[in-house]
């Protein structure tokens, strides 16, 4: 099964802009650096950083940095200055839960944490994707006006989540802002 998935991934790499990663990834334009795991592949398009090892549907780690003025994808709620950390978490989780392509969203944990010196959040939740696969996710994020920074790990709950959660924790711990206001 794994060989087939790798083969599919290799095919995808051949015709899509996937690049192998490993080591420090620094993006001045997005004002962050992060250490990426060896042997993973990075989607080399779009604004967000997305990496996977066995395929994005089975496991992926994303780092996003939207402007807080930008509309979110699924909720019409908006970030605003002076929001409390749990309000920021609430907006992100509401955005995830409002996605009609997922079913049975269930929040398991939602705690306040400090990220890069900012008050942030760490949430764990599960849902079923449109293929019926149960996905478990960890979402860590914080607001550093005018940006929201989010690190998100999504993996099939069975087998894959446990397999790569430590990899995500290492990526998360290595996350740094290049400049802070």
């Amino acid at each position, binding site marked *: 099964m794994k060989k087939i998935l790798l083969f599919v991934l290799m095919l995808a790499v051949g015709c899509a802009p996937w690049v192998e990663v490993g080591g420090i990834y620094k993006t001045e334009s997005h004002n962050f650096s992060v250490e990426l795991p060896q042997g993973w592949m990075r989607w080399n398009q779009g604004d967000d950083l997305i990496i996977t090892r066995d395929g994005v549907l089975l496991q992926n780690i994303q780092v996003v940095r939207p402007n807080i003025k930008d509309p979110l994808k*699924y*909720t*019409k*709620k*908006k970030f605003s200055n*002076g929001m*409390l*950390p*749990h309000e920021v*978490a609430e907006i992100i989780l*509401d955005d995830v*839960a*409002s*996605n*009609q*392509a*997922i*079913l*049975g969203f269930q*929040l398991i*944990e*939602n*705690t*306040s944490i400090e990220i890069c010196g900012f*008050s942030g*959040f760490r949430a764990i939740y599960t849902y*079923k*994707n*449109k293929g*019926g696969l149960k996905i478990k996710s960890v979402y860590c994020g914080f607001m550093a006006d005018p940006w929201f920074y989010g690190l998100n790990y999504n993996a099939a709950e069975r087998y894959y989540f446990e397999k790569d959660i430590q990899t995500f924790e290492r990526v998360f711990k290595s996350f740094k802002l290049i400049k802070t206001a």
Partner: protein
Amino acid sequence: MRLIVLSLLFCFLVMGCATTSLPPVTKDFKLEDDEKRLWLRSEEEQEVINRSGVIYRGEELEAYLNEIAEKLQPAEVFTHIPFKVVVIKNHHLNAFMYPNGVLYVHSGLLARMDNEAQLATLLAHEMTHATHRHLIKQFRDTKNKTAFLATISVTTAGLGVYGSLATLLGSIGTVAAIRGYSREHETEADEEGFKLMASSGYDPREASKLFTHLKKELEEEKEKEPFFFGTHPRVVERLENYETLLKTRPLEQQEGILNTEIFLEKTSRIILDNARDDLRAGRFEIAERGVKKYLIVKPESAEANCLLGDIYRQRAKGDDLAKAKAHYQKAISINSSYPDSYKGIGLIHYKQGEKTVAKQALELYLSLSPQALDRTYIEGYIHQCKEGGKK
């Protein structure tokens, strides 16, 4: 996708010479061979939907909806088409009927209705599609074969953005839920449905009111909806048809049953659940309307008053925060051990710098809800309050 197109093509070839002039279902009704295949295919598609987790489980509500459906059709029709109403958890405005009598109604549409007469209008419209065999007629319409196939290909492609339900629908579900039937068949469903609801004693004036609501909401939200009843031109068509039909009735026959109270009682849970989803999605006005509707039936609900407080607190426009406080207080006066009301009130005071009141309310919240998922945030705010601030 290729399989769907091939199987449809096969159906068309088999049905190439069949007539589209079929009588409605009566006591002598017999399924034709190609119609049987459509029914079988419908069952397969329904299995996919039923297994997917989109079904809203509520025995009492389902029993009520099916009771209304039974009122609308003579028993002899039920022996041939075993109608069954099933609710789908989905905020989009829609309902769709399979030819074998299984009718799916979205929770979003149910939550927008005011009374049983409006529900009867919708059920009767959808049931007419089955009793008048619109799907088999449409499939047999050889002139439209190519266009029909093309439409299915186009409408099913890229539906993922509208969520899992849209991608779960098979070819029959796509016709029924998204594309709709021909204008002629939809008009027939309006006319026959109108007769059914009115002859069952329901107030015929409510038929057009349902679509006036939907039209208003679609215009307010400016959200592009994928499904038939969420499409502005189709809603306007229904509205105009029902208004014309009402004018044809003598004035003395323009009154009837509304059953507002029983309808709201039976659908109240769905109204509140839907309002919660609307709040999550940031549709504040719709969420507010939903909770207010729920409060008409259950004014002494701490949960609903607290939810209304949450809506105002999160929207925070104009005098929203004052309204939020009032609703949290009302919720506390109804049920002093409902924790979320204290959290809401505590957060407002915390943000307003009134730390003493905030601390007291937040501590009460945690004592009533020791397992609260947001405990660490609240403890952090309480800690900040202890460090001082405005009294």
